[in-house]
C-alpha cells in the first residue's frame, strides 16, 4: 500500500489531518457553543477530503452533504434559536451521571483503540484500485454491497432513522382544539378589536415638518395623539402646533371658497 501513496496524497493527508485534529480540539475547548459547532464542521470537511483522497469520493461527498450540510446546520439552527452561549453548569441533574459518563467514555476509548489497533495489525493491506474496480467503479461498488451483503443492516438503520423522525414529530406535535385562524379571520378580529388596526399615522402629516416630534394634524386642525412616539411624549418633547398659522390658512381657505 505504501507504494501507492504518492507525494500529493501525503501532502493532502498532513494538511487535512492537521485541520481535523485542530477542529476536534477547538470543538472541545471553545467557550461558545456556536464556535464548537463550527470547529466540528471543519473536522467533518477535513475527513471528507481524506475520504476522497482515499478513493472513496461517494462517501466523502455524502459526508459533506449529510453531516456538514444538514446535521451540523440543524445544530447551528437550534443553537441560534435557543442562544446557548452561557457556560455549562456543573451540577449533576441525574444521580451517578458523572460516573456513568466516565465509565462509558473509557469503554468507548478501549473499543476504538482495540478496533483501530487490530485493523492495523490483523487486516492486510489491499489495493484501493482493485477494490473500486470490482463492480466497475466506487459508486457501483458501494451500491452493490449495500443492496446485497449489507441489505439487512442498511434497512434496519433506515427503520431506526424513520422511527426517530416519527418520534420527534410526535414529541413536537400539538393537538389543535380549534381550527387555525385564517388570514381573513385574523384581519376581521383585528378590526373588531376597535384599536387602530393599521399603521399609526405618521408624524408630520398635514403639518409643515416631517420630523418625529411634529404631531400629525387631523383634518379639523387638532393634534393626533397616536402619531407621536411614546418616549417623546413622556419627555414632553413634542413640538407645539402653531395654531395661528393654521387658522390663517383656514381663513384663507374659507375666503377662497366663498
Amino acid at each position, binding site marked *: 500500500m505504501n507504494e501507492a501513496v504518492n507525494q500529493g496524497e501525503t501532502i493532502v493527508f498532513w494538511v487535512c489531518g492537521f485541520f481535523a485534529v485542530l477542529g476536534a480540539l477547538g470543538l472541545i475547548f471553545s467557550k461558545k457553543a456556536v464556535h464548537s459547532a463550527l470547529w466540528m464542521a471543519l473536522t467533518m470537511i477535513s475527513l471528507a477530503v481524506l475520504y476522497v483522497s482515499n478513493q472513496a469520493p461517494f462517501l466523502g*461527498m455524502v459526508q459533506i452533504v449529510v453531516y456538514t*450540510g444538514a446535521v451540523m*446546520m440543524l445544530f447551528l439552527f437550534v443553537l441560534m434559536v435557543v442562544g446557548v452561549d452561557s457556560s455549562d453548569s456543573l451540577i449533576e441533574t441525574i444521580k451517578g451521571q458523572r460516573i456513568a459518563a466516565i465509565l462509558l467514555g473509557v469503554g468507548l476509548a478501549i473499543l476504538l483503540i482495540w478496533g483501530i489497533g487490530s485493523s492495523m495489525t490483523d487486516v492486510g493491506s489491499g489495493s484501493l484500485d482493485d477494490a473500486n474496480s470490482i463492480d466497475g467503479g*466506487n459508486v457501483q461498488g458501494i451500491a452493490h454491497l449495500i443492496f446485497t451483503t449489507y441489505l439487512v443492516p442498511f434497512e434496519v438503520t433506515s427503520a431506526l432513522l424513520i422511527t426517530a423522525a416519527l418520534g420527534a414529530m410526535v414529541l413536537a406535535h400539538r393537538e389543535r382544539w380549534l381550527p387555525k385562524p385564517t388570514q381573513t379571520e385574523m384581519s376581521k378580529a383585528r378590526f373588531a378589536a376597535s384599536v387602530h388596526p393599521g399603521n399609526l399615522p405618521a408624524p408630520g402629516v398635514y403639518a409643515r415638518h416631517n420630523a418625529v416630534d411634529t404631531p400629525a394634524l387631523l383634518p379639523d386642525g387638532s393634534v393626533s395623539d397616536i402619531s407621536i412616539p411614546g418616549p417623546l411624549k413622556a419627555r414632553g418633547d413634542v413640538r407645539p402646533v402653531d395654531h395661528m398659522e393654521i387658522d390663517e390658512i383656514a381663513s384663507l381657505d374659507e375666503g377662497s371658497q366663498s
Partner: protein
Amino acid sequence: MTNSQFGVFGVDPWWLVILKVVAIFVILVLLTLFTIWWERRVVSRMQNRIGPNRVGPQGLLQSLMDGIKLALKEEIIPKTAHLAVYWIAPVISATMAFLAFAVIPFGPTVSIFGVETPLQLTDFPVSVLYVLAIASIGIYGIVLAGWSSGSTYPLLGGLRSSAQMISYEIAMGLSFVAVFLYAGSMSTSEIVSAQQSVWFGVILLPSFLIYITAMTGETNRAPFDLPEAEGELVGGFHTEYSSLKFALFFLAEYINMVTVSALATTLFLGGWMAPWPLSLWDGANSGWWPMLWWLLKVQIFIFIFIWLRGTLPRLRYDQFMKFGWKLLIPVSIAWIIIVAVARALRNDVDFSNQSLLLVGAAVIVLLLLVSWAFQAKSDRKQAALDEAVAAEALVTVDAAAGGYPVPPMPGQEVTITTRRSMAASTTIVADRAVTEAVTNEQENPDG
C-alpha cells in the same frame, strides 16, 4: 482518480490546470458583472423604465463602476459582532460559489496550445454530488453572517435561509435522482454525453420543473427571497455588512445564480450540445462552438430568473415552507418511483416502450377516475360546510360595526340585509356630528 472512464481528466499539465482555473475565475466575474447589468436592464424594460445606459456602451460598464465604488466605501462593523465569524462568513460564501464551477463542462475536447483537453476543469464519478456538497457549505456563509452580526434582522434572515436551503436542497437532490437513473452516472461529463439523442429536460420534464423551482429557492431569488426580504428584514443576513464584505455576498449570490443555471443546463438541456436546428450542422458539436451554445442556454435560465423577479410577488414564509415540504418533495418522490419502475420494467422484464406507455396511460386514467370520485365526494362535503358557515356569517356581518372602522358616508344609513330573511334589517345611523356637518353642507353647497 485513476478510473478508466475518467482518463481524459486529471492528466493535464500543470500550466493548463492553472490556465483553466484562471479562465473559470475570469468568466465567473465577467458573467457576474454582465448579469447585474442584464438584470437591471431587463427588469427596467419590464417596468417601463430604461435602466442604466450611461457608463460604457449601453451602460455595460455600470456594474464595474458600482463594484469599484462599493469596494472603496467605508466599512462599518457593528460593536456586537462576533469578529472572527463575521470576517470569515463572506469569505466562505464567495469561495464556495467559485468552487462549484470546477466540475461544470463548458464544451467537448479541444486543443489548447497543442494539448488535447476537455473544456472542464475536472470531473469525477460523483461530481453532481460535489456541487450539492459545495452548495451546502456555501449556506454556512449566510447563516454565520446572520448570527455573527449580533443584530436581530440578520439573525432572522440567517435562520430563514438555513431552513430554506435545507428544505429546498432535498427537493433539488431528489430531482437529480431521475437524471442519474437515466444517465447511469453522477459525473457531469457523462450526463452530458448521455443526452446525445434527447435532452433529459424533455423526457424527465417533472424533474426539470422541480429543479427549476428548487434552484430559485436555493439561490434566494424572488419569489423565494425570504432571507433578504427587504420589506420585512431590511436586508436579511447581510444587513450589517458593508463595503468589500457586502460585495463578496453580492458576488456569491450572482455566481450561485450562474452555477445553478449551468447545472440545470448540464443535467437537463444537454450541456454544451447544440440545440436541434443547429445540431443538423456537423461541426456544431466540436471545437469551441459548444461553449457558445452552453452560454446561450445558461443565459436563458438567467433570463428566467430575472423574469420571475419582475413578475412574482414574494411568498409568505409558511406558504413557502408548505410548498417545499408538502408539494415539491412528495411529488418528486412519486415521480422517482414512476421513473424507477419504468426503468426496471424496461431493463429487466423486457417491456417495449409502446406497452410501457399504454400501461402508464391506463394507470393514469385509473388514478384520475379514483381521484375524481374522491374529489366529488369531498366537494359535496365542503359545499355543505361552506353553506353552513356562510349562513352563520351572514347573520353577524356588519361592515361598519358602530361606525368603525368604516364610518358611514355622510348622510348614509347603513342597512345590512341578510340572505336568510330579506326583511330583517339593521340600521346604523351615522354619528350625529357627521350628519349635522353634512346637513349644513347640503343646505349651502357653495360653503
